């Protein structure tokens, strides 16, 4: 993979180019000041070396103009650095709406990746060229960090909540995937590969994989098995709110606040139902903490995201989001 001594990483995504441009700007500024300081130090040291034993330096106390100059100029430079990197950071943190969603679960020393179409991969991620991918990640034990150097993206993966990262590959090939946050004995073994494939190759790979149906269908089966359907009846007459097409809505909470029904809210409501209780419903839902694994949680959430308002449950509607 690459020459024996690569000195600069490949650029695998649109953002990689922009991060590198910013990096070169920073390198230029750093080189300029390093050379300036080193040059001045060496020049002054040689030019004003002590010639006789009791020689003294000039009685220069300082110069206000010079002092102000090298406070104001660095300040402006740092402000350029700040705003440029802030713009970059906001774009890195906000996935585009048309991004394809893939779920990732970090577990002590492996990456489990789950496509919506049902494929499950360990330490491997196959994605099509040119399609933005949004990763919804969580961890089953300690903190990990999903890091693909070629895409210049990294995001810690925390137990107990979802974190998101996204990238849009612009180059096909096989790229490194690392765990960047120290997570125990085989931290350096928790690595893998991201395969960026031509779209048609990707479709072929996709078709071959799915054994037991899409994520959503597995979610709806689980919805029945765990008897969620008894309270969350689609016609809304159950003790719990109807979840049909609820994903993305803003609902009122018991304590007067509002909440957007996103993956994080659904996950939290399954594990600790009363944390943000919906308005008008009794706090009777039992917690599923320990009864439902992270993968099953993803399936349930995927199912709820794919329900349509006022249609029969169980039908497999087209992917909603």
């Amino acid at each position, binding site marked *: 993979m690459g020459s024996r001594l690569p000195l*600069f990483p490949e650029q695998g995504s649109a953002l990689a180019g922009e991060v590198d441009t910013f990096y070169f700007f920073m390198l230029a500024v750093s080189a300029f000041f390093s050379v300036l300081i080193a040059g001045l130090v060496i020049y002054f040291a040689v030019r004003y070396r002590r010639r006789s034993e009791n020689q003294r*330096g000039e009685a220069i106390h300082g*110069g206000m103009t010079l*002092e102000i100059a090298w406070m104001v100029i660095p300040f402006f430079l740092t402000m350029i650095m700040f705003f440029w990197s802030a713009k970059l*950071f906001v774009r890195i943190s906000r996935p585009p709406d048309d991004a394809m969603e893939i779920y990732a679960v970090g577990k002590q020393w492996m990456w489990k990746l789950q496509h919506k179409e049902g494929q499950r991969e360990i330490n491997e991620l196959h994605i099509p060229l040119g399609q933005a991918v949004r990763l919804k990640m969580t961890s089953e034990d300690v903190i990990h960090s999903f890091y693909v150097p070629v895409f210049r993206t990294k995001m810690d993966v*925390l137990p107990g909540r979802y974190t998101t990262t996204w990238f849009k590959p612009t180059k096909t090939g096989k790229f490194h995937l690392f765990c960047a946050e120290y997570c125990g004995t085989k931290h*350096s073994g928790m690595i893998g590969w991201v395969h960026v494939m031509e779209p048609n190759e990707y479709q072929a790979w996709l078709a071959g994989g799915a054994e037991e149906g899409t994520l959503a269908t597995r979610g709806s089966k689980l919805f029945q098995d765990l008897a969620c359907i008894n309270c969350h009846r689609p016609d809304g007459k159950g003790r719990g709110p109807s979840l049909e097409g609820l994903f993305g809505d803003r609902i009122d909470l018991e304590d007067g606040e509002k909440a957007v029904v996103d993956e994080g809210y659904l996950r939290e409501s399954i594990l600790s139902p009363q944390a943000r209780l919906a308005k008008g419903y009794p706090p009777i839902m039992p917690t599923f903490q320990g009864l439902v694994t992270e993968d099953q949680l993803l399936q349930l959430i995927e199912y709820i995201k794919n329900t349509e308002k006022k249609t029969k449950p169980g039908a497999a509607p087209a992917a909603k989001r």
Partner: protein
Amino acid sequence: MITAREEKLNYLTADYGVKSWLLTVDHKRIALLYLATITLFFFLGGAFAVLIRLELLTPAGDLVQSQTYNKLFTMHGVIMVFFFLIPAVPAVLGNFLVPLMIGARDLAFPRLNLASWYIFVIGGTLSILAAILGGVDTGWTFYTPYSSTYSNTYVMITAVGIFITGFASILTGLNFIVTIHRMRAPGLTWFRMPLFIWANYAASLIMVLGTPVVAVTILLVGVERAFGLCIFNPNCGGDPVLFQHLFWFYSHPAVYIMILPTMGVISELVAACTRKQIFGYKLVAMASVAIAVLGFLVWGHHLFVSGQSVYAGLVFSFLSYAVGIPSAVKVFNWTATLYKGANTYQTPMLYAFGFIGLFTIGGLTGLMLAATGLDVHVHDTYFVVAHFHYIMVGGAIMGYLGGMHFWWPKMTGRMYPELPAKLSALVIFVGFNLTFFPQFLLGYLGMPRRYHAYPEEFQVLNVMSTAGASVLAFGYALPMFYFVWSLRYGQRVGNNPWGAKGLEWLTSSPPPTHNFDVTPIVTEPAYAYAAEEGAEIVHT
């Protein structure tokens, strides 16, 4: 020549026997006790570093198992940070020089000062005990939930060790602040004080305000690990990011505890070797305090990709740039001081030149890490490792060695041998750059930190880094020899071998136990070289 009678009166010969050392309340003797202890810790931590670099010679993890490797870098981090870098300049040079430089007979609370050393030794013994029993593998940052629930190594003993050692740092900081406020010589106003005192004052502010927070954080991890309490544990709603907030609230200002006193040393070296006032004395003094204060607002740049909110990340990024400015001002002022000075190149000044160069590179790469957009790519990679080693090894240790060479005659009454000292300084400079510059490249290539095995395309850069590490290790061993040699054979020195300004040069070397026979009266500003009569001013 120093007559035998005068010889007898100094603090080293005033009393003999182990008890006179272990029960001393003389700040100079306590400084030497600290010197011995942290030198031991430095070489212990250095040994761990050499093992790490040897392991990284090959892509596969074949020298040691991954569990052992994790313990190696953890112990390297713990010992170097808590038991060498934080105490180094304040506890050795600071303890020795603060009373001398402000014309006091001793620190405000001498017994507390000795207690601080004992607390430091107890904490250190506990941490070494943990290493002997089996070591701890959580990294020196002890991130939960790994450190509180998942690691089955000796986290508890090390946590207690660090908890105890924190109080040694608090006591030193407290002692310095009270001494500097209350015990200055008559005439020594705040803006006549040497910059070394300003820097130690600023570092002491951080020790007093920051250390308790890491103490309570480590206590909470210990309690959570022992009794299953739930504060950072995600199973009961705890947030691991809260641990990171509390941990870095101290640990970032801690890096300013490590660098600020060294900046003070550099100001002294530059002033003494150019025999000139530091350019913009007031601004450099204010910059030290500004770094200490702003240092408390910037810790969030360690959490840019750890789940912290985007907006908080931007706030911390902005503040991190603000704290960079005073450091830049200091570097510019040191450089400007060299203009029209009577510059010499003894060993202390070589270390000062090394410091200015390497600290500049360290600081500028720090600006890169403060940039949120760039930090996403280089966080937790070798780029960060290279950055903080440039500041800690290229900056703090270079300055510490420069200070040791500059005040060695004052501490021991003997001059170190000039040529070997210059050679070792050169070896250290070359070894350092060969070790850590390749790591910048590795970092941007994406090699993560704390990796026991790595992809083979990173091997060449790692081999260069290991080669540099062996040169650096050799370079650090050299001073041990010629310093010890100088104790017996070094040329005896008078009060002021460098012809430098400062109250510590008014008394004898080594100074008597009570420092000054008569408390000096200060009448002129710091570093007033040009004001001396018969001074030949540089006009070229």
